[in-house]
């Protein structure tokens, strides 16, 4: 029976070895040559030859065809020092019929000793792999989707009924940066539905309380706080740079202002509203689907625009609507599924019915029928009877 060292020596006699310099000289386009790293996952994650594909030797037979299907193409394998890749090369050559397979002498160790560059892939820490393991298991999210979530910047307008569950679930999902706009403080009457806040935090600014709630569930989230009211003078500055905006504001003037500013900056808005037992949800993706003004060209007059403060709302209703918003955000960020663009979802809690309505872009929309550059500062958030509306609303 041969020793391990003997086996490796014999394998090297049977296959062709290639010097790292020759592999390096093939960069960057390699003329169709495929370079495969046969080391273990953790070794590959630390660093690898730029552009190398990864097939751990233990999975060689089952996975190589998925990564390098053309058996007549030149294939260069490497490992840490050139032994595992020699054995793998022999397997591919003798048993799987690869015609031009080679093993890189000295592996990545020699490659690095020569001073050649390596690629350090982005990876999740062990803590992140554990924390997001249930996302990683879902193919629609997986590693790439989780990375997108970690890179995402999401702005929440309002840390109230809708913003509370949205913030908690997006924080839990690993959204990297979350902005929160709210000028209010936590009030006892909020706690029937605004679940990110707590009894102990009554009287605290909502942005601070929300930050604490977010960090309690996921300390890795960067929170940017805006303890202010959105108005025409600050909105562009605040929303610029965010990937998605979550609209949970409680008044019409801000909803129209947000619509116009987000169309101008082409930022999608996940919008929900609630009243009593009814919720509405839609995604307004500028120039892709309708905007809020296509749906409602003008708001109701103040006397016909009931608020939750005046009319009440079932505490769990913003829970379901806010979580639906969180899901739409995740879909937009990861690019999975069919976001609720051009559709309006109605949830009616008393009858437990969901109704899907179709929304269309209005060719005469005062905002999104024009180019972003044509939307002026002066008209943003303004609608007919705006002055009267705001006077009546106090």
């Amino acid at each position: 029976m041969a020793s391990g060292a003997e086996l490796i020596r014999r394998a090297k006699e049977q296959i062709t070895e290639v010097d790292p310099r020759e592999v390096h000289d093939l960069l960057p386009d390699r003329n169709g040559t495929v370079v495969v790293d046969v080391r273990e996952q953790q070794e590959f994650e630390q660093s690898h030859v730029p552009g190398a594909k990864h097939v751990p030797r233990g999975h060689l037979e089952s996975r190589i065809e998925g990564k390098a299907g053309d058996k007549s193409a030149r294939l260069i394998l490497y490992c840490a020092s050139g032994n595992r890749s020699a054995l793998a090369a022999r397997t591919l050559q003798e048993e799987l019929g690869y015609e031009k397979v080679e093993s890189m002498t000295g592996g990545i160790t020699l490659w690095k000793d020569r001073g050649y560059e390596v690629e350090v892939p982005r990876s999740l820490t062990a803590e992140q792999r554990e924390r997001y393991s249930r996302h990683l298991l879902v193919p629609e999210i997986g590693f790439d989707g989780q990375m997108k979530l970690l890179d995402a910047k999401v702005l929440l307008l309002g840390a109230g009924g809708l913003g509370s569950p949205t913030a908690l679930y997006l924080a839990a999902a690993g959204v990297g940066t979350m902005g929160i706009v709210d000028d209010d403080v936590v009030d006892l009457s909020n706690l029937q539905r605004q679940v990110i806040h707590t009894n102990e935090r009554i009287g605290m600014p909502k942005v601070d309380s929300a930050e604490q709630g977010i960090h309690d569930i996921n300390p890795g989230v960067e929170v940017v706080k805006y303890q202010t009211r959105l108005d025409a003078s600050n909105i562009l500055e605040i929303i610029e740079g965010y990937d998605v905006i979550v609209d949970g504001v409680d008044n019409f003037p801000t909803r129209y202002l947000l619509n116009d500013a987000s169309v101008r900056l082409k930022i999608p808005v996940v919008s929900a509203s609630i009243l009593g037992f009814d919720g509405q949800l839609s995604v307004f993706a500028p120039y892709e689907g309708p905007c809020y003004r296509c749906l409602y060209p003008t708001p109701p007059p103040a006397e016909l625009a009931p608020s939750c403060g005046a009319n009440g709302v079932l505490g769990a209703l913003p829970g379901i609507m806010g979580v639906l918003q969180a899901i739409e955000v995740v879909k937009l960020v990861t690019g999975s599924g069919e976001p609720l663009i051009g559709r309006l979802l109605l949830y009616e809690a008393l009858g437990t019915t969901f109704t899907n309505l179709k929304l269309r872009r209005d060719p005469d929309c005062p905002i999104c029928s024009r180019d972003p550059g044509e939307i002026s500062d002066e008209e943003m958030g303004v609608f007919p009877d705006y002055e009267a509306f705001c006077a009546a609303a106090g």
Partner: protein
Amino acid sequence: MSVTVKIPTQLRNVTAGDAETTVDEATTVGEVLDGLYDRYDGLRDRIAEDGDLRRFVNVYVGGEDIRFLDGLDTSVEDGDEVTILPAVAGG
């Protein structure tokens, strides 16, 4: 023939709390709404103005906005579902 109408929270104070009702013998959305106006005092003023819908109220038949169909002349058929939907800002 009969059409089902869904009434949102904001309007239920003029529909005696009804969240859903049916209208018989209507062939257009306009006739459906007329049927409702006969039944519910005060509903007309809440959603209509000068014979047309107010701009912040949308009406859908079978999930389609009637503004992109034939407006109040949009025809309805037996079993259709009509949804009245004013803008809501609550958060």
